């Protein structure tokens, strides 16, 4: 049985481990459809959500996941800035650990933060996003969403479109998708494609219309307006002209292409409203599956309810 110590990234997860997580998530998904949405699996367990970045979806998703498993969930939001030394971060984590939580969920603006914390405490850590590095639970919920519609993942082609360089979602998805035997194509302006990304076994394309023609899944990424200041973009207008997923562009795609987006969406900038609301769009399914995937990870990290008694 797959029993990880922490979930710091999708990098290194093996195919059978991902399948275990997704299968477990499938069984947990049903709980959220019941009138009484709670099982006693993690009763008496404590989960701390430590979020140093603003987050609605991910933080709520972790909180609901814990609560539906009957764990006590505590939310802490911290502020961070480049002048705040990480010593404080380690101190914070060690202080929280001194109160004996069972899982620490961390979101931080700096790459490597989750790994650094896990090196300094014994408590299992779930990385809820660190800088531009990894966001493994997002990748897993993306896979679950694709799998439940397509049936299987092996051999599927995916185009990921947008600011690849500044996306932790992309990196986690590349690792997870490659492990599952999928083909990944990255699409965006060259200023937003990080150097040597091809070494991760992906291809790169600059032209949206051409890049989506043969794919099974299109993942659109949020474009952040402040990127303009670092010479990465001329304007949002031009970005939208070149990379917005519209119904017209979608005419070139396969009929059964799926559209996903990790959110939050810039409506009308990277994705047109009608596309977002079309039946090919699984954006809200992703959010629903996020709860199930996080329940599954909490369950697997704590080794199931039986161990908890001992």
């Amino acid at each position, binding site marked *: 049985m797959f029993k990880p110590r922490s979930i710091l990234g999708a990098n290194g997860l093996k195919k059978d481990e991902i399948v275990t997580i997704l299968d477990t998530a499938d069984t947990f998904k049903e709980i959220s459809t019941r009138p009484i949405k709670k099982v006693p699996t993690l009763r008496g367990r404590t989960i701390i959500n430590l979020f140093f970045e603003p987050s609605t979806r991910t933080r709520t998703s972790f909180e609901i996941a814990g609560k539906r498993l009957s764990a006590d969930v505590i939310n802490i939001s911290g502020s961070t800035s480049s002048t705040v030394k990480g010593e404080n971060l380690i101190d914070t984590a060690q202080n929280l650990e001194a109160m004996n939580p069972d899982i620490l969920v961390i979101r931080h603006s700096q790459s490597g933060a989750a790994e650094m914390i896990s090196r300094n405490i014994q408590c299992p850590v779930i990385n809820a996003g660190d800088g531009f590095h990894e966001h493994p639970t997002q990748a897993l919920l993306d896979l679950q969403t694709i799998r439940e519609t397509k049936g299987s993942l092996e051999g599927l082609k995916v185009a990921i479109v947008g600011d690849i360089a500044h996306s932790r979602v992309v990196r986690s998805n590349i690792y997870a998708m490659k492990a599952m035997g999928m083909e990944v194509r990255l699409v965006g302006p060259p200023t937003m494609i*990080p150097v*040597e990304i091809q*070494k991760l076994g992906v291809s790169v394309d600059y032209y949206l219309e051409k890049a989506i023609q043969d794919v099974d899944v299109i993942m659109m990424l949020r474009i952040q307006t402040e990127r303009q200041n670092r010479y990465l973009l001329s304007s949002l207008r031009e970005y939208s002209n070149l990379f917005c997923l519209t119904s017209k562009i979608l005419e070139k795609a396969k009929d059964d292409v799926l559209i996903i987006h990790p959110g939050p969406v810039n409506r009308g900038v990277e994705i047109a409203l009608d596309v977002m609301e079309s039946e090919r769009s699984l954006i809200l399914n992703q959010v629903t599956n996020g709860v199930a995937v996080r329940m599954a990870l909490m369950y697997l990290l704590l080794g199931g309810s039986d161990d908890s008694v001992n």
Partner: protein
Amino acid sequence: MTVLIKNGRVIDPANNLDATKDVRIVKGKIEAIDPPGKINIDEKGKTSVIDAKGCVVCPGFIDMHVHFREPGFEYKETIESGCKSAAAGGFTSVAVMPNTKPVNDTRSVTELMLSQARAKGIVRVYAIAAITQGLAGECLSEMGDLKDAGAIAFSDDGRPVMNNELMRRAFEYSKMFKVPLIQHSEMLDLTEGGSMNEGAVSTELGLKGMPVEAEDIMVYRDIALLEKTGGRLHVAHVSSGNSVDLVRQAKAQGLPVTCEVAPHHFILTDEAVRGYDTNTKMSPPLRTAKDVERIKEGLKDGTIDIIATDHAPHDLTDKQCEYQNACFGIVGLETALPLTLKLVDENIFSLSDAIKKLTSAPADIFNLDSGELSIGKQADVVIFDPDYEYEVDVSKFHSKSKNSPFNGWKVKGKVLHTLVGGKVVYSAAEH
């Protein structure tokens, strides 16, 4: 006081010497170097004898690039702790960079540093003063006055001179005083916010990269300026293969350019950053295996003149944090010898060439009266066992700071005794 160092393999590149000899030191100076047994101990009891059998005896090492943090950041290192670290690493002379607080851009700071060093009397300390006032890159420092106070070279290390016009004038102005300018070559607009080399590893780790071109562009700019201005350029801690080529070409043109490399840049690559160990964060950053290969070629063919550590002590509070927030730099004085000897084992250069890059070569470039064992010279000597194997243990470092990526490494080559002016300033606790 007389010291007799017996039976050692005496290597003195300046005099083309590599043979088993006895070295006699009288009143702080080299008095005789003769075949074993030839020197008699005539004044019994007054001669201190060091048996150097199986060891190398050579001029004390010279490190032209250290940060001793005093004044201003004494919690990281002081001149005293830095000197002790130097002595333990076999260094008898060091040159301290000016990025202290206050910056060494005025006579009073230079004098303070040098008087502190003299008061402690451990190793020889030379001061490198700032090219621009406050390292601000706006206004030239008083190079004449600073040289008079003891500064031997000028550098805005860590804060490269970005302004082209100012750098041109700095070269011109420095000619009056015949002092080399040392550049930390980095185009800051290309590296802003970066914390490691830009490449496959930075992409994977999600860390903003510092592209190698940032170094190359500035190395090229300085060489281009030098052709017309005259003056002397010493390129600090070369980490890029292309920069090695640029220096090679400039030397072929006969331009007065020299350069140094730090041991971590010929031992480690950016692969070491995986795991986010902040002791792999330095500027310039660790580069790729290809760069390391080309640096080794540069060491082999003499393009790279000297080895300098860029000893950059940082307290745990400055390193035990997120990678992006961590300070740049690692301590280097106490690991320089074993890391350099690795290249001897790899046949990159001979032991004598390695020692040259740590002794007579820096002395020649910076016009120091040391780095050789000639008769009558001050007796700055290191005795080391090139074959002694041990594990690097940062907790035993004499430096105040322990920020080294080499902790736990199995290495070969240990300093046993360091003598400055004939006085033993360091002896290994165990051997």
